[in-house]
């Protein structure tokens, strides 16, 4: 119980308010669970049961065969690996570049720094679709279309969100530490990777998680750049599903969607702390 000098009303009133709040939260949480519940129950229904009218809310059978059959119906594994490959490269690129850039902005004084940082922040406003066509024309000219390079290389040149997040964090590290290291004769890059990076594990974890989730979900980039079907990332493969089957097998599709969402769900379960921290330090969309 919190002890407060100020009373917000009588004990009885407080208790009623608590009960109302709890009831409303339970109601909303219940509604929010329906889609996930549907996903799980549909995945264990037989194809016949998914097309039963009226539909069943609780499955009559628990048939897990869709979890295996999905691998026969769809080339899930190679595309999963494609997606992992692209996302991991993007995460590495974002971590390396954004931490260097953010460190530059947080630690050094230079003419024009303020203006440059404002430019970084203003690129947050630029919608990707408004630069994608000239980027495509550029990558087409240098023959990068139908490779992963157009998706991965830009990540190695920094991401404005992540630069902002890391700059906030680096600025909170005390200056004395750097001065001491400098007196000990550490070079600037050594200070960066021997002192700053180890101190910033939590912030770097947030950056890694968010950049993984964004690249894992990205559809527009891969749709534009990847033309050979064997190079498709998972979202491109799955995007065609609704129209691919004449009679869609929803149990298979729910399993596919579940598998596709699995890395993000696992990340959330095991790294929840970094999500909250990352969102709060930067105010960014997850």
């Amino acid at each position, binding site marked *: 119980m919190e002890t407060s000098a100020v009373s917000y009303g009588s004990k009885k009133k407080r208790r009623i308010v608590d009960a109302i709040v709890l009831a409303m939260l339970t109601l909303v949480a219940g509604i929010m669970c329906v889609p996930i519940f549907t996903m799980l129950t549909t995945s264990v229904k037989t194809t016949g049961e998914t097309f039963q009218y009226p*539909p069943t809310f609780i499955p009559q059978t628990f048939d897990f065969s869709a979890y295996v059959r999905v691998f026969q119906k769809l080339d899930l594994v190679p595309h999963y690996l494609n997606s992992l490959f692209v996302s991991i490269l993007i995460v590495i690129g974002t971590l390396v570049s954004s931490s260097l850039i953010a460190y530059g902005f947080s630690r050094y004084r230079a003419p024009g720094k303020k203006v440059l940082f404002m430019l970084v922040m203003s690129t947050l406003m630029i919608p990707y679709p408004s630069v994608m066509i000239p980027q495509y024309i550029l990558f087409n000219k240098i023959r990068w279309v139908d490779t992963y390079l157009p998706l991965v290389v830009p990540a190695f040149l920094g991401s404005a969100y992540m630069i902002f997040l890391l700059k906030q964090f680096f600025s909170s590290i005390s200056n004395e530490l750097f001065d001491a290291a400098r007196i000990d004769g550490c070079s600037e890059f050594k200070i960066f990777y021997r002192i700053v990076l180890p101190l910033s594990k939590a912030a770097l974890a947030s950056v890694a998680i968010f950049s993984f989730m964004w690249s894992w979900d990205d559809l527009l980039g891969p749709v534009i750049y990847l033309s050979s079907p064997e190079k498709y990332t998972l979202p491109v493969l799955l995007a065609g599903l609704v129209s691919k089957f004449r009679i869609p097998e929803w149990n298979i599709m729910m399993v596919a969607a579940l598998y596709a969402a699995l890395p993000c769900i696992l990340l959330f379960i095991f790294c929840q702390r970094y999500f909250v921290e990352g969102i709060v330090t930067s*105010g960014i969309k997850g």
Partner: protein
Amino acid sequence: MTRKKQTKYFFLFISPWIIGFLAFTIYPMLSSLFFSLTDYDALTAPVFVGLENYKEVLHDPILKISVKATLWYTLLNVPIGLLLSLLLAMLLNATRRCKGFFRTVLYLPSMVSGVSLALLWSWIFNPEYGVANYLLGKLGIQGPLWLMDEKWAVPSLAIMSFWSIGTGIVLFLAALQGVPRSLTEAAVLDGANWYMRLRHVTLPMISPIFLFQLIIEFINSFQVFTQAFVMTKGGPHYATNFYVYYIYQNAFVNFRMGYASALSWILLAVVMIVTVLIMKCSDRFVYYEGGDN
């Protein structure tokens, strides 16, 4: 460290960003301005056509539908989504039991995103077998055709987006927890009731986060693409032919890069103008601690 050395290291560290900014932001923006004045199919050389593309923008009937659909989606998605996430954050902030549990339940849906989310909701909105109409039926309501109904397609996608407001909730919750206790207590001592505390203490204190969310949500809503691509293919009858989907269609299906470049430039201009407008208007309702900005 000397000034010169500081400058040297500064530019050394941020050099990746400078390269990226020039190559993937400035150059594309300028070249798309050029391409927007041409007829270009990405194979043969661009042909200069002056302002033809921009003239076409004014008379393109499908574009008109696209703009309307995008605005309609934004108008539904942004205000309602923000209010919902603020409301839920306030409930989370007020509850004294199971806070962690509810936060997880409200945030977890945001982990199902992109194409997975689109597949899931295609099924939920299935008029015959989907759970949406099943549950409405239990309440005695005859559900609509959702994505297959011209009128309902955009609202359906907005409803779907309300399921993924976890990030907004976490953000507002953090802001609410950051409101100093001393302020609310002082207000109580002065006899302020619940509404007065909300109106004069809580809301002003969280207004910067609100502004930030408002801008980000606007920019994101203007870019809605995945849902149209996966769930509706822009239909029915162009009802969800959102602006970015239309750019994509023009550029990469019809190979009209010039026209698509013009559309891209207009998108960029509109986003910038809207952002600046929101910031300008916000001076009146956003409170920054520690004086003017």
